[in-house]
């Protein structure tokens, strides 16, 4: 990091904020100073500075400089763009945010947010973390501004109305209306292929009328199936705690004793169910219904007979 660059950017912010009319690049060069000689190197440096300001959340307003014979573009920072509408947090609310950000390690972005909100920050050595890369931030911006998103997912180009986001098992998901498919879909943001494009138009859609369901993390119900099957499964007592953690309150416990744990649960996605059961190897057994049990035996038999 360079103190010269820091000082120059701060001066640039100050000059563009206090000016009464847009300033041309040449005027900026004279007032701010510290830029390299030569027109081209100045322009490169100025472009970099503009990008740096944008990344910080300081948007530049570009408009024609008035009163010039030949129209020239000028730059300034408008207070209405710069200022965060004051959320008017009370002392205990700032303190609560501070503690929350320390407890989950909200990262550098979280620290900056707290500083801007007037709350203190402190080092957090908590290992739990909610990571958010540029793609996640972009999706969030589109969610709050209600802009369409375009991206490729599973090798299909999509146009999505972004409704909400969910963080589960260490990953961010987007839940939105896929215009091509005509239905609400879930996307793991880390699996989006290539770049994400945000639509130009804000408030491009109305928020959904009904609350939108979250992403399920249960393999047996990853896909909607019109007719769920109620499975009954036995588990070895050795894996009882792990199974209950997987269930997360889903399903009904029929029995839980020294002979094992027996649960009933609604299955809407057979492949996911099979995978989940197989992850317990011979410590799990599908007891019923007969159709589901036969599917499992069939799969295992195919594998066993392959050799």
């Amino acid at each position: 990091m360079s103190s010269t660059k820091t000082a120059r950017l701060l001066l640039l912010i100050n000059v563009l904020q206090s000016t009464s009319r847009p300033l041309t690049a040449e005027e900026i060069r004279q007032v701010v100073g510290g830029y390299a000689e030569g027109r081209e190197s100045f322009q490169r440096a100025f472009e970099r500075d503009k990008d740096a300001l944008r990344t910080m959340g300081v948007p530049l307003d570009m408009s024609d400089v008035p009163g010039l014979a030949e129209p020239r573009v000028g730059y300034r920072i408008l207070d209405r763009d710069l200022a965060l509408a004051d959320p008017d947090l009370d002392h205990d609310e700032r303190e609560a945010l501070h503690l929350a950000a320390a407890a989950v390690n909200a990262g550098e972005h979280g620290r900056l947010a707290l500083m801007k909100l007037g709350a203190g920050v402190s080092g957090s050595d908590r290992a739990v973390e909610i990571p958010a890369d540029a793609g996640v931030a972009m999706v969030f911006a589109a969610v709050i501004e209600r802009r369409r998103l375009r991206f490729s997912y599973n090798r299909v180009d999509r146009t999505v109305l972004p409704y909400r986001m969910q963080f589960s098992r260490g990953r961010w998901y987007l839940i939105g209306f896929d215009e091509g498919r005509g239905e609400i879909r879930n996307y793991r943001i880390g699996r989006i292929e290539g770049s994400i494009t945000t639509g130009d138009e804000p408030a491009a859609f109305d928020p959904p009328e009904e609350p939108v369901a979250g992403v399920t993390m249960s393999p047996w119900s990853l896909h909607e199936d019109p007719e769920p099957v109620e499975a009954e499964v036995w588990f070895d007592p050795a894996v009882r705690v792990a199974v209950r953690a997987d269930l997360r309150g889903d399903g009904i416990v029929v029995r839980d004793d020294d002979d094992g744990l027996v649960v009933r649960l609604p299955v809407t996605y057979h492949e996911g169910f099979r995978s989940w059961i197989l992850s317990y190897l011979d410590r799990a057994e599908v007891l019923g219904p007969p159709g589901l049990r036969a599917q499992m035996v069939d799969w295992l038999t195919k594998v066993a007979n392959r050799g």
Partner: protein
Amino acid sequence: MARQVLDTGTRIQRLLALLQWVAQHPDGVLVTDVCQRYDMRPEEVTREVELAIMIGGDTLDYSEMPVEGYFDGPRLHVHLNGLDAPMRLTPAEGLAVLAAAGALVGPEPDRSSPLWRALVKLGSVLGIDPAEVVDVDLEPDGGAVGRSITEAIEAGRRMRLRYWSYGRDAVQDREVDPWALFNAEGQWYLTGRAVEVDQARNFRLDRIQKLEVLDEAALPTPSDVPRSFAIADNSSRVVLDLPAEARWVTEAFPVVAAEVNDDGRLVVTLVATETSWLERLLLQVGPDAKVIAPRPPAGEPDVLVAAARRVLDRYRSESDGISE
């Protein structure tokens, strides 16, 4: 906590927040309070403030210089002629603070709590209902088991765990000197010294069946506790030939190398620590998976076939009429 090298943008935003906060106090602020609030060292505060008061010194008249500031013994005074507009949150910052707060309020928030009120106010500034837009599913302290372990770590006590090892598919009582908790991919782990083998081990919290804090003191925690998984170089490698649909394997397992063949099939090299773990992967992929290396001894079934037969035995031993 290790201090990161700040990039220019972060540094500027921190400096502006600091100046604006101090400027709100006409009688100045103790430097020690500034340090605590912004997680800085006193010499950093001095350096940053000295940088700020020079801004515009080369080009502006003195009266136009945006920042005035001076140190008066232990106190810092700041007056701003410019740079006084609070900066808005970038989307990444808004999300970070909403997510952190959202993780702590949980699914059934106490609507009178300061955190919930802060969340609602932030939401209204961003123009959203936070509860409908961001949902964070995270137990920030590892739940009841996590809290017990944290207490044991703080008290420096040894623990006894009844633990199901997923890799070996075995339940054992283990004595552990606990070092630290960490979270990876949304799961909580304990890292510590397994007393019997005198080696570092990781234990996933949701596989701990019983936990007992012993009276015995734990050996001192080493200074450099690893808080993530590292793939050991000496672990054995497995090479698999998988159908195209099994692309998920490359995301769900520690893959060392993956290649796509012309026919779309994947050749994947994995670090395999335990057999049970490989059996699961193969059974989940199904009959179309092949083990390229290591090959089983001549005349013996490979890992996949052997595992399928073993699981099938469970179904066949039941007298419910299922036949081959």
